[in-house]
């Protein structure tokens, strides 16, 4: 059962930050598709600060060759935004697989990151794009990389008075990129495994590879060993096979052997083979 709470709907970012700093036990609600589920299970907050009607926190814009995405942008918007689709197709793709159409109309990218589920679909493509987050409180603004922001499963560096206001990503010009998720049914399912990738190829060799894997380790991660190994190598099955082994070893080194790996690692192996080997 839902406990009693107050709901506030600030109309500007400044107002929202004031709410977060001045009210007792505040929490940001940015769609509520995670928060309300937790609250129905017993989590309680005195003041819900609903940021979904603040225009400046929603939508994508371009600044200095960076795309800035407002935290209250819904996944419906992220998956359909022409700029995001052009500059970060892996993110648009990931966004299009989250939940159901109803959930994508409510759930926001900021909420997904602050919830920090190991299976959050938006994280892997944002890691590939070296996402930088802007966190604001009433008297402070700071930026942090997404990689540093996520401290563990469902744990981030955000404080109660802070708002994750925007996410900034670099378009990867000249890269081929994509996102693939595996789930128990065709739609409306949590990712069992996800891979986001971006590759720059020059005459059949890997100039640069970026690879992020979700739902496998406590937090989605960039497979940097694999990325370093591949840099400058020819794109061929043997190289891909070696890269795959490196990747699986990296996962095992992070978490040790897990019961779910009987399934997940062979799948990851086959997906990576297809992605890296060009099969």
């Amino acid at each position, binding site marked *: *059962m839902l406990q009693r709470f107050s709901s506030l709907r600030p109309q500007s970012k400044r107002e929202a930050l004031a709410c977060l700093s001045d009210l007792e036990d505040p929490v940001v609600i940015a769609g509520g598709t995670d928060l309300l589920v937790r609250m129905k299970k017993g989590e309680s907050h005195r003041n819900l600060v609903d940021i979904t009607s603040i225009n400046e926190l929603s939508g994508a814009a371009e600044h200095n060759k960076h795309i800035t995405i407002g935290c209250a942008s819904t996944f419906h918007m992220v998956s359909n935004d022409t700029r995001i689709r052009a500059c970060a197709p892996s993110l648009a793709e990931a966004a299009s697989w989250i939940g159901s159409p109803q959930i994508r109309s409510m759930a926001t990218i900021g909420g997904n990151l602050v919830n920090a589920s190991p299976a959050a679909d938006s994280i892997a493509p944002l890691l590939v794009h070296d996402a930088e987050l802007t966190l604001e409180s009433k008297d402070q603004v700071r930026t942090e990389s997404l990689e540093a922001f996520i401290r563990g499963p469902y744990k981030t560096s955000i404080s109660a008075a802070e708002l994750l206001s925007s996410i900034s990503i670099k378009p990867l010009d000249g890269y081929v990129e994509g996102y693939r998720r595996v789930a*128990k*049914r065709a739609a409306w399912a949590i990712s069992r495994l996800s891979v986001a990738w971006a590759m720059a190829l020059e005459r059949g060799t890997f100039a640069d590879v970026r690879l992020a894997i979700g739902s496998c380790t406590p937090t989605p991660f960039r497979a940097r060993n694999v990325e370093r190994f591949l840099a400058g190598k020819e794109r061929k099955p043997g190289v891909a096979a070696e890269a795959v082994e490196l990747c699986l070893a990296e996962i095992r080194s992070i978490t040790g052997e897990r019961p779910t790996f009987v399934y997940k690692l062979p799948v990851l192996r086959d997906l990576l083979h297809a992605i890296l080997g060009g099969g």
Partner: protein
Amino acid sequence: MFVGRDLTKIDALAKVTGKAAFSYDLKTEEMLFACVLRSERPHARITNIDARAALAVPGVLRILSATDIPGKNVYGAIRKDQPFLADGIVRFVGEPILVVVAQNETVARQVLGLIKVEYAEIPSILSTTAAAESPVHVREEGSLLALRTLRKGDVERGFADADVVIEHTYKTQWIDHAFMETEAGVAYPDTDGRIVVRSSTQNIHYKRAEIARMLALPEERVRVLQATTGGGFGGKLDVTVEGFLALAVYHLKRPVVMRFTREESFLSNTKRHPLHIEYKTGFRKDGAITAVKANIIGDTGPYASYGETVCLRVPVHAAGPYEVPNVHAECRMFFTNNPVAGAMRGFGIPQVAFAHESQLDEAAEQLGIDPIDLRMKNALKKGSLTATSQVLSASAGLLETLRQVEPFWRKRRKGRRGNGFGLGCMYYGIGNTGIANPANADLELAEDGTIILHTGACDIGQGSDTVLLQILLDTINVEPRYVVLDRGDTATSQDAGSTSASRQTYISGSAVRNAGIKLRAFLEQRGFYRGTPLSEIYRFAKDEKPLRFDGYFDPPASGIDKETSQGVPYVTYGFATHMTEVQVEEATGACHVNKVWASHDVGRALNPRLINGQIQGGVAMGIGFALMEDFVPRKTRSFDTYYIPTSMDVPEIEVMLVEDPEPTGPFGAKGVGEPALIPQAASLINAVRDAVGVSVFELPCDLERLKILLERRKEKT
């Protein structure tokens, strides 16, 4: 003529406009809310209950326990063995212990957390193996609920005659009904002092009897009505909210409402029986089946519910829809501390079909015979002897369903890697097994010149309201405007039996026709068909006799032998063939269903569109059963982890109908509700085998299980 036409469901408009009143829509301001405190232990003695803190909370009116039940604290469809409220011992997680009645839902649910129950643990029996071997019994009478056997011919000789023998063990999982509307209802005392219960249910007369026994009241003091019901699938046959509601009204004399949360529904509702099926089939070189031996073990949870029904249906149907001269099938149901397994669409036969259809496809490969030819060779047809040695004298259209699918089967072409096709056949006895299961229906000529159909048959969404009216309209040959339906009220109708076993069209339909024939003779005699208005007929006739015409039908099945199950368990059977096309992605193990072709012999299609709806729903449910649904006792809590198919998982479904009329059915009709589901998982699993060459012996064949099977095969080669 209304029979045979796609008449729009009479409840369609009310449902699409949101006007239909489901149970919780009947809630009024003055209603109290009741909710249930449930066991957190699978097997324990309750040593102490302290509800003082909860009772002290403002808004809490009463907390009811087993000691507040004035009559018998047991219910059960077949045997009365399940307590409404735990009486000292709990036998599964979720078993009701107390009912809290409060001013509103918030208070009622909040105080559940203040009630302290102390338990003394009893060792839990969590598997059928443990049930068979452990000295601890879930029930005083022992661990075995039932053992049913079917024997026909001599299986050993049959296997000796076989050129090819296929033998495997198949396992199926726990399944939740996952109906859209969770269990709910309202209850109140009426001005005559009766207790009225209106709920989401598949049967009303049964529930009236259970409530009356619980409250030690004559049945006339209890009235049960069916509210608009959002799905049942067997899960609303057992008593759910009705007993608690009636008990609360009995003590408080005030109106009360209940609804289960989805989590509560998962925890408390009966489940499909998980079956362990050891199955052996013998074939001659020409494909003829010589023998079937099946040893089946089921987990029925701590109480009987419909366990015995499944336990009997399973051996009776174990050999599948084929002519098998020698059959030995046995089913045992064990009591455990898992959830109560009960009735669910098909009563064990979707599980069994998975086994016999898998065996057929493996045999087809070994024999070098096309799977459709192998099925056609062995198919039951008019004149065949079933496994119970019943002669099928009519309405046996399995071959025709195979022939309807045949052109699609013959011209199938496998596309890219991972593409595959599979067949599944089934037969299914309509109505209860080898016992009387009558239905009544009454027609009344009312003062205003309308004809009222009083039926106790619950429409749970499948469309019996519409079909019964179609039968009536054609029987008495009147326009719909003359007819009014009065459905689902024990005060105005006689028992029609449960909406289960695909029986309402066939049995209640025949009862309506029976009443209609009597009314028609009366109307004929009074000049209605020559133009005399009904209101005038009423005026002239009302003093002569009561203008009520009783209809009745009980399928004339003579029953089966207790030891061998030989005889006539059902008068008529549904037959079907499904063909499924899948695409398996070997990298992930994900299986997508591309298309399903479904052909059903329904006797007579009274309303083809409604039949189509049943088949579409059956296919969707079968996809869930085959590929993803998996209830894990004490772990599965909600749809968060219990996956059912979405519209994206359900393909185009091509429905074809065979009409081989059933002489005892209304206008030749039989039933389709369960047949729609039964062959689906079987045909899908055969398609997976065709697609990637692995045999699946355990359901669900979800992506993890399939990927692991694919990996194992790779290791072998």
